[in-house]
Structure formats: structure tokens, C-alpha cells
């Protein structure tokens, strides 16, 4: 280790001597006239802006600056900076940023203020997700009936079975069971038939273990059809027991 350092020092000394010898061989020339005095250096300029100028605590604003003729730029609270650029700041109180640009020609200042307003009160904790009619109807689907019938079909029974688990896991829900009929036949008789349809659906749910006191029945007969065209596909839509939240 020591041997290599000594070698390196020796080499440097040799090169220095060679350079000095070369300089000594230059021809002598007339001395040049003295140069004109250099112009005074230009004074620096600086701009600084903040966007947005007003934020809530916790939010950020962007400082953007540019300078000319500056050799060093400092911004209070930020420190040394490049001669132009931008930077994100997140003050917690209203802050005036002060930029000083220094150069050979002097210095320049620029300021920008970011106003910080109080944050809004924190939002209330979100309520537990409420049961909406749409959620309910996705899980408890209507039961459809044959012509002039209030018997639950095997399809209808399957629909009801699918609904039972949901009703059991939401035991706080009260349910309105509404019976509907198609447009044919007599108005008074259809009200009684609609009642039978609602009752039949309720009875099936009670048999499957749903507490009957949670279920209220009503008949709309043919008073409130889902579909108003005069054809079987439409009539079938209207021969139903419909379930909804009883509020």
C-alpha cells in the first residue's frame, strides 16, 4: 500500500516538471492591450406563484417559479431550489412563500401565499347499508299463477323456497304480500281472487318457517296491473303475488 502511494507521488512530480519546461520554450510577443472593463452583471428577476392559492388542511398546492440571471435561488420553507421549477407543498396553516434569487447583479424577491382553510367536519360514519326495495326484490321474487288459479305451482314453490333463506337471515323485515290478477273477468271477483293469491303465497312462507306476523296480505285485483297490453304474455305477468317491504 505504502509503495504504490510513493510511486504515484513521483509520477505527478515528473509531469509537473515537464509542463514547466515546455512553457519555458514559448516565444516572447508584444503584450496585448488591456481588455475593456466587463459590463456590470444584469440584475436577476424572479416570479413565484401558487396554485391553487387556497387549500384545505391536508391538501396540496403547487408553487411554480422562474428566475433570470440568478445563480442561486432559495425559497423559505423549501430551501435551495433550481432557477426555475415547481414543487408541491402541503402547508397546514396559511403560509407565505418567499423566494430570493441571487445573482452577480444583485438579488430579487417574489412571494406567494397559500391560504389554508379549516377542513370540513369529518363526515358522519356511514350508516349500515339500508335494505332497499331493489335489494329486497332481487332476493324475494314474485310468484306467478295459472289462469284463474291461486295454487302455487312447482316453479312458484321453488321461488318461495329461494326467498325463505333471505327472509330468515333478515328477520327484522316486514313484508307486504300483494295479490294481482289479469284484466279479464269481473272486478269484484278478481279482488277476492287476488286476496287468495296473496294468502296462498303467505301460507307457503309460513309453512316454510317464516313468522306469519311479519307478513301482511293485500289484494290489488286487476286495479294495478304491471303490464297493460291485452295478450297472454302480459296477463301472465299480472297473475302474481308480489313481495315488498312493509314500512
Amino acid at each position, binding site marked *: 500500500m505504502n509503495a504504490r502511494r510513493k510511486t504515484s507521488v513521483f509520477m505527478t512530480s515528473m509531469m509537473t516538471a515537464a509542463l514547466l519546461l515546455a512553457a519555458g520554450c514559448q516565444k516572447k510577443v508584444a503584450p496585448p492591450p488591456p481588455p475593456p472593463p466587463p459590463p456590470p452583471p444584469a440584475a436577476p428577476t424572479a416570479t413565484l406563484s401558487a396554485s391553487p392559492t387556497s387549500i384545505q388542511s391536508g391538501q396540496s398546492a403547487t408553487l411554480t417559479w422562474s428566475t433570470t440571471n440568478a445563480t442561486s435561488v432559495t425559497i423559505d420553507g423549501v430551501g435551495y431550489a433550481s432557477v426555475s421549477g415547481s414543487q408541491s407543498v402541503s402547508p397546514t396553516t396559511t403560509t407565505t412563500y418567499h423566494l430570493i434569487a441571487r445573482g452577480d447583479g444583485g438579488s430579487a424577491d417574489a412571494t406567494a401565499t397559500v391560504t389554508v382553510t379549516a377542513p370540513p367536519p369529518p363526515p358522519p360514519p356511514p350508516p349500515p347499508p339500508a335494505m332497499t326495495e331493489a335489494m329486497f326484490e332481487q332476493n324475494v321474487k314474485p310468484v306467478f299463477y295459472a289462469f284463474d288459479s291461486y295454487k302455487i305451482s312447482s316453479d312458484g314453490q321453488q321461488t318461495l323456497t329461494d326467498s325463505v333463506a333471505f327472509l330468515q337471515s333478515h328477520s327484522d323485515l316486514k313484508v307486504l304480500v300483494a295479490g294481482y290478477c289479469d284484466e279479464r273477468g269481473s272486478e*269484484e271477483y278478481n279482488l277476492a281472487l287476488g286476496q287468495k293469491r296473496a294468502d296462498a303465497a303467505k301460507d307457503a312462507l309460513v309453512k316454510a318457517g317464516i313468522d306469519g306476523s311479519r307478513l301482511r296480505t293485500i*289484494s290489488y285485483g286487476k286495479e294495478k296491473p304491471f303490464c297493460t297490453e291485452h295478450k297472454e304474455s302480459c296477463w301472465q305477468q299480472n297473475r302474481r303475488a308480489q313481495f315488498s317491504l312493509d314500512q
Partner: protein
Amino acid sequence: MTGWQRTLLRFQSRYVHTLSALLLLAIPACAPAQDWVHTGTNLGAQKIRLAAADFHLSSFDPSQGSGDKQIFDATLFSDLMNAGIFDLVSKSMAPTAAPASPQEIVLTQWSLPPANAAMVAFGTLAVSGGHISVTGWLYDTQNKQSPQVLAQQYNEADSPDAARHIAHEFADAIITRLGGGIPGIAESKIYYVSNRSGHREIWQMDYDGANQKQITHLGLISLSPRISPDGHRLAFAALGKNGWDIRMYSMDLNRLVHFPGTGSDLSPAWSPDGNSLAFSSARTGDPEIWICAASGYGAHKITSFEGPDVSPVWNPRTGTQIAWISGRTGLPQLYIMDGDGTNVQRMTDGGYATSPSWSPNGQFLAFAWDRSYGPGAPGGQDIYVMDIASKRWIQLTHDIGRNDFPTWSPDGRHIAFQNSQHGQRQIWTMLADGTGQHALTSDGSNSMPNWSWK
């Protein structure tokens, strides 16, 4: 026996047999594929030939001219025409004379062709000092010795309504006298459901469709109006927040009065003494027929058979039987039973039967029937009348769309019903033999007529 009394007796015996004769003739109609035909009862030949002269205007209020007299003449003529028991001399056949008094009438003018009237109604109308007064006579043109059958006098504060009202009263007096003592119906009312206000509310009109006015203003769905026998209370069913309840409207107080409900009560019906109501209720989980006091309390169930039971109606003559509609065997059928639920008899043998109305004499049931109801069936729903003792029936409406909710007039000579064509429901009326069908309403959708008891 005077001429008009003979005419009357002849008429009475024939009229009473008219429906029975129709029903007897209808027996072959039970055979399948029987086209409907008028069976040749030739009712016109049995009707009394009656002329109604224009009334003499003896004095009038210059500010309104002869307006009230025109209303009076038109109303009287229309009432006598509607009565169904007269062969009314058309205005073009009648003498133009307007005899003011018995001294002025020339009976041969009326008894000879072209009028050929057996009876003539005439008289005087005067309006003065804000009063209208009418004197009307009914004369037998065949009885030269003592032709006077009726002489009536009326006085009221003057108004167009008063002119109509007096014409109704005079027409009813003539109809009562010549129609076998059965009171006329010119002052009866029809209650019904109309959507004209934007909601289905209960409305009322005169028997001829005049004076249509809204009674309830609930903003709900109100159906099945039933006026009490005394005309003071109106029961109906309305769909509120808790379901269907019977509501009770006081025609005297013009407001609802208390009536208890359970949220599944439909189709009320008054007992003829006005003390009880029959109705359909699903309060125990199956729509059955119940009976309660007119106050709504003391309800008890009289049917117990699974299936829809609805639309009860009492036998208005005896008050001991109830007809109603039951779906206990499938499609709805017409049944009758005693008021305690015993002696159940099925009346219809198939099809889709609804909406019974019991004739005032207790002998007939009118109802709506679709005899070939089913998916894909053409579905003609028509009004039928059945003789209860024999279960024979005749069809009263043909090829005029769907018909429902027949209701008998108090004199048993007319049936109003709900007709629907092209999706529009209107109230129609006809004679109980199916003739003279015409609409009483045209504005909005009108349904479920219920004729007052008197």
C-alpha cells in the same frame, strides 16, 4: 168497469207474465249453438197506447221565456217513454193542440187516427213570482162519461230542476196508476264509480243519466257502491293504506261516518230492512261472506269453504236469502243460501258467473255470465236473468262487448249495467226483457252501477 180499468187489468195480467213467458220461451236456448233471437213476445201490442200533450204555458217569467216548459215537456215524454209499459204516441203523430184544461180537450182528436191514444196526459204550467205551478190530468179517451183518471197539482220554487222534478212526479203518478200500482222510478238514482276526477270515486245520477255528480273525494280507489234501502247511507269499498275497507258515507251529512275495517273487506250489500250488511272479508285468511250490523260491529262469518266468496246480495223481498259468487269449485259460479249460511244451492252450471243482483219481487237473479270462459275463448260476457225457482235463464245482452254489474230498478222493469267496448266502460240501461238498451254515461270511464231502492 170503465174502459181504462179494463185496459189496466188486461195490461197487468200480461205484464206480470211477460218475464215468465220469456223464460219459458228460453228453454230451447239451453241447447248448444242456439243463436239468439227475439222470441216474438211482441211486447208492443200489450202496451197501453198513451199520448202526452205539450203543456199549455199560461204565464211565464219574461226573463227565461218558455225554457222551463220545454224542460217539463221533454222530461215527461222521456219518463213515459222509458217506463217500458206504454206505446207512447210520437210527437209527429200527436195533435199539436196543448189543451190547458179538461174544458179545452177534444178527446176524439186523441182517440182517432193517427194518434189512436187510449190515454192522454195534458195540463197547464205557469211560472210567476218565482214559483212554478203545474196542473196535470190523465184522461181515458174511451170513457166519455167520466174520462178523468188522474188530476195532480204541483207548486215549487221555480228552477229548471223544479221543472224536471215536477215532470218526474207527474210521470210517476201516471206510471203507478197505469202500471199495476208499482211506483214509477223517475225519481230514483243510480250510484256508480267514475274516474272523471282523476281518481275512481263514487258518483250519483238520476235514473235517466241527468244530474251526474261526484259524491266522494277520497283520492283512493273506491268501488262497489251500495245505497241503503232508505237512501240515507252509501256503503262502498275503498283501497286505503291498510287495504280494502268498507266505508260508510252519510248522504245527509255529506261526509264519511265511522265504520270499522280489517283491511280485507269488499263488496258490501244491505239487508232490505237496512239493519245489516253482508260483505266479503278475508280477515281469517280466506275471502268468505260475513254479516255485520249496519254500524259495522257484530261481524260473523256465514260461509266456510275454501275459495273466493264475494259479491253477496240479499233477497230484497224476504230478507232471508243471500245470493253470492263463489270460486270454491274453480271458475266463479252463482249460489244462493239462507241468511245463516245453510241451504247452499249452486245456480249456474259452468262458465264464469259474477255480480248478482236480486229482482225487487224476489223471483229473479240478474248476473253477468261468460258461458265459455277460458284461455283463448272469445269471452263474451253478457247480462242474464235467471228465474230462481226453475233455474231457467234468458240472455239479455248480445254482441255489445263485455257487460257486468247488472242492477235492478226499484220497479223491477229495468236493469242498468256496465258495458265495455273498445276499452271504455259506460253505464247502460235497458228494460228487463233486454230491449231499449242505451247508454246513460259517456264522459270518462264509468262502472259498477247500483240502483237506489226507491
